[in-house]
Each structure stands twice: as C-alpha cells, then as structure tokens.
C-alpha cells in the first residue's frame, strides 16, 4: 500500500517533550479501512498532529466516502 504524505513543516512543537515535530508514517483507520499516511509526529512521545485543513478537507472526504460504502 502506498503512503500519502500530509507532512508539512509546522510551527507546532510537542510541549511535553519540547521537541519539533517530524514526518512519520502513521496507520489511520476508519470503518474497516486502513490507510498509511505520513503526518507530523513528536519523535519522542508519538503525539500525532492532524492539522485543521486535513481534518476538514481530505480526511472528511474519505470518511464520508467510506460511510457510503
């Protein structure tokens, strides 16, 4: 399965670990479907950033598509 990258340079830093975020592969799932995507993640504690434009854009689109399957 190919990996889509949604990783983009960001000013958000993990507050707990005081670390900048870095691109990392993440397995996201919805209704029995699995997607491998690249998101910005805290390298120390794995805090995953889902940016607003992703959640309300592509992600929503895919969610709705899967819901109609």
């Amino acid at each position, binding site marked *: 399965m190919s990996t889509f990258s949604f990783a983009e340079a960001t000013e*958000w830093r993990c*507050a707990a670990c005081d670390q900048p975020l870095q691109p990392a592969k*993440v397995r996201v799932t919805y209704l029995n479907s699995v997607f491998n995507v690249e998101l910005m993640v805290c390298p120390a504690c794995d805090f995953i950033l889902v940016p607003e434009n992703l959640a309300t854009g592509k992600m929503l689109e895919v*969610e709705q598509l899967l819901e109609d399957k």
Partner: protein
Amino acid sequence: MDQSQLRALEALCIQEEMPFCTAACPIHVDARGLMACLAKDELREARKILDRTMPFPEILGRICDQPCRPFCKRAEIGDPLAIGPLERYCVSVTGTVLKPPKLPIKGGAVAVLGAGFSGMTAALDLSRKGRPATLITARARLGGSLPDRAGALLPPEVFDQAEATLKGYGADIVKGASLDRETVDSFLEKYDVIYFDWDDFDRDLLPFSSGTTDPVTLALEQKGCFGGGGVEGDKPFSVMHQAENGRRAALSMERYLQGVSLTAQREKEGACPTRMYTVTEGIPRASEITAASPIDGYTAEEARAEAARCIYCECLECVKKCAYLQEFQEYPKTLVRKIYNNQAIVQGTRSANRMINSCSLCWQCTVICPNDFPVAEVCHATRQEMVATGHMPPSAHAFALGEMEYTLGEDCALIRHQPGTTASRYLFFPGCQLAGTYPDTVERSYTYLTQHLEGGIGLFLSCCGAPADWAGQSELFSDVLSDLKTLVGQMGKPTLIVACSSCLAIFGKHAPDLEVMSLWQVLDALPLPEIRFDIPKTPLTIHDPCTARYQEGVRASVRSICAKIGLPVTETTIGAELADCCGYGGLMQFANRPLGGKAADLKAGRSTTDEGLAYCAMCRENMVGSKTHMAHLLDCLFADPKKDPLTRARVGLSGRHEQRARLKARLQSTLWQDPAESSAPHRAIRLEMDDEIRVLLEERLILVEDMQKVIHQAETTGRYLHNPANGRRLASFKPAVVTYWAEYEPADDGFILHSGYSHRMQLPEADS
C-alpha cells in the same frame, strides 16, 4: 422496499402521466412539447415532435380536427390552446426533420385495400415495422375522400410526398386498380393479413359479410381481416379518426402476424383518460390569439404568442413547496426509484444515502399530493432498513443521537412530583428543545401550572425519543419510549402536559396508552397570566410547526390564546396542515446543514408581516436571525421583563446543551432544595471565543463542552502542542468515537478558543 412496493409507490406519483392534450389526442402527439418549442421559436425541434408521432405530418398537421382541444387545461383560465392551427403553422414553415427508423423486413404478405388516410397510415406503420404493405386503391390517387374534403388547405404535392414516403419504407402502391368481389376474394388467399379502409373501399365488394368490428383491435369476423376509417356513425368526418384507426389496425395486424395477443395492454391507445393533476390557481387568464388571416393561418408572431399561452401542464405540486425535493431536483417518483436503486447496491457507493437522510419527514408533500404520496414514510422506512443492515453512515445522526442520550442522562433528566406533594395528577413535559432554549420560561410556566391546576403537577425533563425515531434507530427509540412509560407509570400514570408538537405527535402515534394533553390546550382553558412585555401593534405571522400538521386543536388553541392576550397575529402564506418544516424535523439540519438553512429560510419566507410568532422551540431557533424577529408564544406568556421575546438571541447547539443541564441543577435546588451536585471538572473551564468561532463550532456540530473536555485533558496531562510564535496550544481528545481538536491560548482566568475541529478517522492510540 421490494420491487412491487416500488411499483405501487411509483404509480402514486402522476407527474409522468400524459398532459391533458396528449391524452386526448388519439395518437398522443406531445402537444405540450410542441407548444414549448413554438413559444421559443424552435421550429426544427417542434417539427421533430410531429415527425416522431404523426403519420404524414405534412397532411395531418395541416388539417387535424384537434379532438384534444376541448380537454386543454388552459380552458379553465382562458381559452383552450389552438393546437390544430399551431400544428398547421409548424408544418407549413418546416420540412421533414426526422424520419422514424425502418425495422428489418420480417416477411408476411400484407395488403391494405383503400388508400384513404387510415389505409395510408396502416400501410406506413406496417411498412415501418418491417412488414411492407401493398396499398391498393381504385382511385387514381391516394387520400380517399380527403383531397376533396380538405380543398385548399392541402396543397396537392403533399400526396406526392406521402407516396414517396410510403415507397421509401418499402410499400407497394397500386392505383387505379379494378376491384371486384372475385379479385378481393383472391386477395384473401394471396395475403396473410388485410386492412379495409372504409373511406376508400366499397363495402359491397367484400366477399364475406362484414359482421361486427372489434372496437379495440378493429378485427373483422373474417380471419386475418381488419377494417376501419371512414365516418363513424353519425359523427362528422374526422381525419384524426382515420389516423387513429390506421395506426390501431397496423398494431393489431403486426400482432396477428406474430401470433401474439391482439388485445393485451391496449388501454392507452387512442384518446384515453389521464391522471395528470395540474393546479391552475394563480395563473393569469389569457384568451386565444387567432390568426388575422384565417386562410393563411398564423404568422410567426401570432404562433409564438398563442403557443406561449400553454401552461405546460404537469403536477410537481409537492416540489413547488418542499425545499428538500427542490434541493435534490427530484419528484417523488424519481426519488423512490433512486432510493430503491441505492438500497440494491451490494458493492460500491450508495450515493443516495445523504438524500435519504435529508428529508424532514414532515408529511407536507403527502397532504399536498392528490394521491397522498408518502415520501416521509419511504425515507423513514429506508433509514430503519439502513440501520438494521449496517448501512447507515455513522456520522449522519451521531450528533443528534448524542444529544438525545445526554438529555436522557443524569445531567439533564429529571422526574419529580410537585414540591411538597407525593402524587401527581399531571406531569409537565416541556421537551428537550424547549428546556434547552428557554429554561427560564419553562420554569415560570411550570410554576404557573402548579398554581392553577389541582391534584399535583409533577415535572418531567426528558426527551420523547423523536431523534432516534427520525434517525431510523427503531430499537433505540422503542427503548427510550418504554423507559419513559415506565417512569410515568412509577409516578402513578399522571396525564402528560406536553409543550412540543413533535413530542405530542410521537406520543400520539407510538404511545397511545399514555394520557397526554397539549400545553396550549391546557393554557387555553386556564386564566392566562398577565402579559409583561410590550405587545406589538402590528401583527405577528404565526408559524405552525410541521408536526402540528395533524393537530388542529393545538393550532386553534394557539390562536385562541393570542386573541385572549390581545396579541395581534396573522397567517402565513402556507401554514396549518400545509406548514413547512423549519429544518429540524427528520434531523434534516444534522444530516444536511446547508439544506436545513434553506428550509428555515423558506419557512420564514412564508411570513406576511415582518415579525413572527412560533410555538415550537426549534422553529424559533431556526427561523430567528439577524433579519427576522420572532417570538415564542410561551415566552410571550411568561416573558422575562428584561428580555424582549421578539429579539432574544438564538441559543444555538451549545447553548441548548448547556442550558438543559443547568435547568435541571437549578430547579433541583430552587424547587426541591436538593444539595447541588458537583458537576464534571471540565465544565468549570472558562472559555472565551469570538462569535465567528461559535458559528464555526455550530457548523461543525462541535459543542463548547467538547472543547472544554479537550482543554481539560490537555491541561491536566500536559500533552498538547505549542506554537512558540503566538503562544497558542493545540490538543485533541477522543471521548468516544470522534476525536476533537482545540486550538486555544491561556488567558487570565481561563482560555481563548481560536478554533475547533474534529475527525472520525482513528489514529493509533499513542502510548504516553
């Protein structure tokens, strides 16, 4: 829905029935389409319509005796359309545009004796069907009696054209034939099937007794022989009758050659009744435009003007009113087909899900429809089926169901006897939305009821389960209702006094064993409270909620109360049993937010004055806006002197959510003097935000409480992102299925919210 149910439903919607003109036309010419083209000066398209249906349009189009005309709907509001003269205009200014196809030759020896217009038509139709006919006439030309009858209306070359057409389809033409009984007798041997055109063939030459003719098939008693045309009884000669008979005979003869039933499915052949329903109310009258020169017929301008009087008869009565049907550009017949197809999909995208979930289940269309088409019932049953089969999109109703669960839960639900009593004759049931919208008004009306009714009046803050019902969650709905009935039973089965029309409708339909009364009918029978706000001078337009459609008594009480308190009111353009839904019904506004907005605007637009009056909390919530002033009747009766009922702000999803819980907590301490329960710690978080962000959260169906939960979680665990450039924080929290994100910033004694969003995709559980 199975296929037979689909067919039965489809048959209810008559939008696709023939318009009156077409049904009355013996060969069903699409006169409505013709009028549309002529009115727009699209002459080629107009001609195509005639070429498609008429035999020899250059003849029939010029002299049709228009038996359709008396049936034209325009007659109700002016004169019927001059359909015949308009056809004449069309064929005089155009040549043939469309040639119907010719089917491959199938064999069979076919003769047509007599070349009047019915014989010509039979020969043409049979030749087109791949049964080339031999057309035989004793005359030296085609047309039988027609050329003599029509005179100057038919230029002689039209018969040459007809002859060429017949030959083009492979017909053989024998003119000047010398016919005697013997020859005709030999034809019975020679041909498999024969048509006798009584306009041109002399009955005396029949070698058998003509006997009776079957009116449906035009079969004569002699096997393989058919007859028609000529003059019918004592009626005047009709050229359309010739065409109809020729066409009818040709179909019988084709079936005869195929050896199939001559009589099956012929009801719609020839002039027939139609179930079309067209409302002419409100259309201005218009009289016929006649040709200045009857001999020359219409000029282009006259024809355009006359054709433009057509009202394009169709139904669409329900669509004209319903925002939902308009939005999806369907009428119920096409809608149910789409629903049926959607449900039949095994693999692939069920693209009609959103459509099915967008209907407000309001039943307006059913009341409007001449055949009571039950769109609401179909959409509702389909939702139940989707839930049962696991095909309901989880996000469609999640928010509304979540709110219902919360309302039924310990934060908001309450059932108590009147303070200081241990039994209840009545139980006030304000409903979840009224409690969330006007908690202060609910409190004052409850106090008022306790002062005016004898026998103890308890209070029941809960939800009737309508959201579960609308969402198609049958099991959940019946659980909610049975819990509710148990609770009412434990109170000693008091009579419920119900404020909301939706609750009332739900109880009436699904819990007939409960004793229920409408709050409005109760108030109407009591001395009314003193009004404490400035009664407007100009009338307010009363907006009935869609769920009061079948509650005539409720609607009457509301008006009676207004009259008693001196509140001037007036009616909407469409209300009472035709009232629109504000967008809340059927959870429309959750499954389809933009459509919910349109429905509310449409309903508000039915106002006849600038200010409105609602008696459903959701109607007011949805219709009140920056431009609309709208009061809730209960709020008028029990107004807080500090708040003008007409201009109170919209409360919104989060506000209603909050206030439901606060109402319970407040009443518990003020009325029953219970010690206050400590509320969840996240609720203590003070959150400020711009109006813009509030609107954004509403649009995304995110509660302020969801944001409080995110921030509480982030701040107690220290797990959040931080942007050093602007000092903002970003964190997420997933209470159940949905993950919420809040972008915020610490402020003096709380936080400022800058954005909120959510997703349903699951991230891997982070191991912190």
